[in-house]
């Protein structure tokens, strides 16, 4: 077994399929770039998965405790199904049984207006370009500014609601006007003889994997959410209801803020699981770190020890980083003794 890091700077002998933010040309890609792209692809699916599974998990977890029988039963059926099936099976199910067969073949691609097209090879988004890019950037900056300002005034006293609404409408109009003045043009992807040319490509394996990870992780997060809400003393809810809060207000303002303290720690574990489970990408042919780095690169270079060590360092680093961030958030949420 050889141990030699110099292979990192030699040219990769194979092509990386999906590299959204880097233009990797065949014959010019170095092995360290393969690692970076693989790691980036893993992080894309993990970050998207964390956001979506958290949203879905909270909805399902709350539904599980809903007063509505149907919502309650559906939520428990969801949780029991997706928590108890092996994840690989779920990935296969979504990719090969649900998603691929429902999508049209390339020749019958679904054209989404000027937005792009969808077929079994992926979602191809039109490329957006502006005649005056500086105006477009100004629009983005204005939108960001307006967002921050409006978010800050979220807890404004009742009298200022009208000002907020006016500011909101004015900024929306300004952003739209700037965008219009920048003269946007869409470059839609074109159907070629053997594939789709142009457009921003989001491969189907990425979507299948993201969806499978979301659905499965959400089931676990839902249970954490339920546990958190149940742990809030019932008196809190009763008190808020008798003060005239609606059930939604009670949940949002009284119960969830207290429940978060119990929800966060188990949810950290679920995020870490999601990071590790993303390695199932190889089952659907997504170019994550395990597929193109631990699979292809290891086999082409034979540098098993270095490749595996680097992969382990990657997963450990990002697991620890996730826990660190979440623990920081957790300690901010803790009850502070005065």
């Amino acid at each position: 077994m050889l141990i030699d890091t110099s292979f990192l700077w030699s040219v990769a002998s194979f092509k990386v399929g999906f590299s959204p933010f880097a233009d990797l040309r065949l014959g010019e890609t170095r092995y360290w770039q393969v690692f970076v792209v693989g790691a980036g692809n893993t992080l894309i699916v993990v970050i998207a998965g964390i956001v979506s599974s958290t949203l879905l998990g909270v909805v399902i977890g709350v539904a599980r405790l809903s007063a509505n029988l149907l919502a309650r039963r559906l939520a428990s059926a969801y949780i029991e199904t997706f928590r108890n099936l092996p994840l690989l099976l779920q990935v296969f199910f979504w990719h090969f049984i649900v998603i691929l067969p429902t999508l049209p073949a390339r020749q019958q691609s679904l054209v989404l207006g000027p937005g792009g097209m969808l077929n079994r090879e992926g979602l191809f988004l039109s490329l957006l370009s502006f005649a005056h890019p500086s105006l477009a950037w100004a629009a983005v900056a204005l939108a960001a500014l307006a967002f921050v300002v409006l978010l800050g005034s979220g807890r404004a006293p009742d009298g200022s609601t009208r000002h907020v609404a006016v500011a909101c409408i004015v900024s929306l109009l300004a952003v739209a006007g700037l965008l219009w003045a920048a003269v946007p043009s869409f470059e839609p992807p074109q159907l070629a003889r053997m594939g789709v040319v142009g457009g921003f490509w989001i491969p189907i394996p990425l979507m299948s994997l993201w969806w499978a990870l979301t659905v499965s992780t959400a089931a676990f997060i839902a249970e954490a959410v339920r546990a958190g809400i149940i742990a809030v003393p019932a008196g809190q809810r009763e008190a808020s209801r008798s003060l005239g809060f609606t059930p939604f207000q009670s949940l949002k303002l009284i119960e969830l803020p207290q429940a978060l303290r119990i929800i966060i720690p188990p949810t950290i574990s679920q995020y870490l699981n999601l990071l590790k489970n993303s390695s199932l990408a190889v089952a659907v042919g997504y170019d994550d770190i395990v597929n193109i780095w631990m699979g292809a690169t290891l086999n082409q270079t034979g540098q098993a020890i270095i490749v595996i060590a680097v992969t382990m360092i990657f997963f450990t680093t990002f697991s620890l980083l996730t826990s660190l961030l979440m623990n920081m958030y957790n300690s901010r949420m803790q009850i502070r003794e005065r």
Partner: protein
Amino acid sequence: MKTWKSCAWLLGVTLMVAAGTAQAGTLEQVKARGKLICGTSGSTPGFSAPDNNGKMQGLDADMCYAVAAAIFGDKGKVDFVPLTLVERFTALAAGEVDVLSRSSTNTLTRDASLGIDFTYNTFIDGQGFLVRKSLNAKGVADLDGATICMPSGTDTEPNLAAYFTKNKLTYKPVGFDTEPQVREAFDAGACDVISSDKAILAAMRTELSKPDEVTILPDTISKEPNGPWVRQGDSEWADVVRWSIYGMIAADELGVSSKNVDEMKTQSGNSPVLRLLGVEGETGKLLKVQDDWGYQIVKQVGNYDESYQRNVTPLGLPREGTPNALWNKGGVLLAPPL
């Protein structure tokens, strides 16, 4: 007290590791175990796939049966371990299997860097393309821009990259861990083209849901000398595996088959045949296997041609006129003199 305990643990672990590394030669291990452990694909019809009775069949599997017949005089003493493309070489180098017989191409990188050694060609193949007939592709030149499914961690990826670069063609690769996953993805419409060794393509084709709707292009873009691999640094064991293969090829050349082997043993009077069948010379003693190892191989497994006709010809791949014919019939298979 605590230190003592950790010290004892450390000592125990070291002992276990030492016992693992200071192992006897593979041949002694196999004999002591009473079974050969053979790494195969287990899902490639014609090369290694279980039949209706669950018994492994195929050209690659026959190589393992031959080694077992030579060592034990009983071809049944084999345990097959299915290995994916990515894990196969590591499994062999780490000692999980005694021999790897899984349509694996002999390349310099593998031979020199993975801690494994090639034995001898048992099947010479070349990389080709399986396409849907609806694409109307006549050759590789028509595949510009296609999405191509392929097994990951194989020779296929660099061959394809090199060939497409040379001919200024583009493609989108989608890599999978095992051949069945490639087939499923193709069946589900994730891609219109599969690239792999032509025999693997022929084998996959038999398992597609609509084999009539695909065709294998006539182009061959590489040479793929496949054969069994053994761990590096155990030449005694490599000799046993290599001569078991030579035995099958020699029997083919000498016209000894499982049907006439008993007759040839007593009546041929031809010295090379008698040496192969263990009547003359002491070839078995030299190899430290059964005295009549050649007889056992031919009697129980058959000669190379019998194995080829039984396993590979049904895939639609005749032997005549290919490199897999004997050296004196226009091919390259040659067994050294016994």
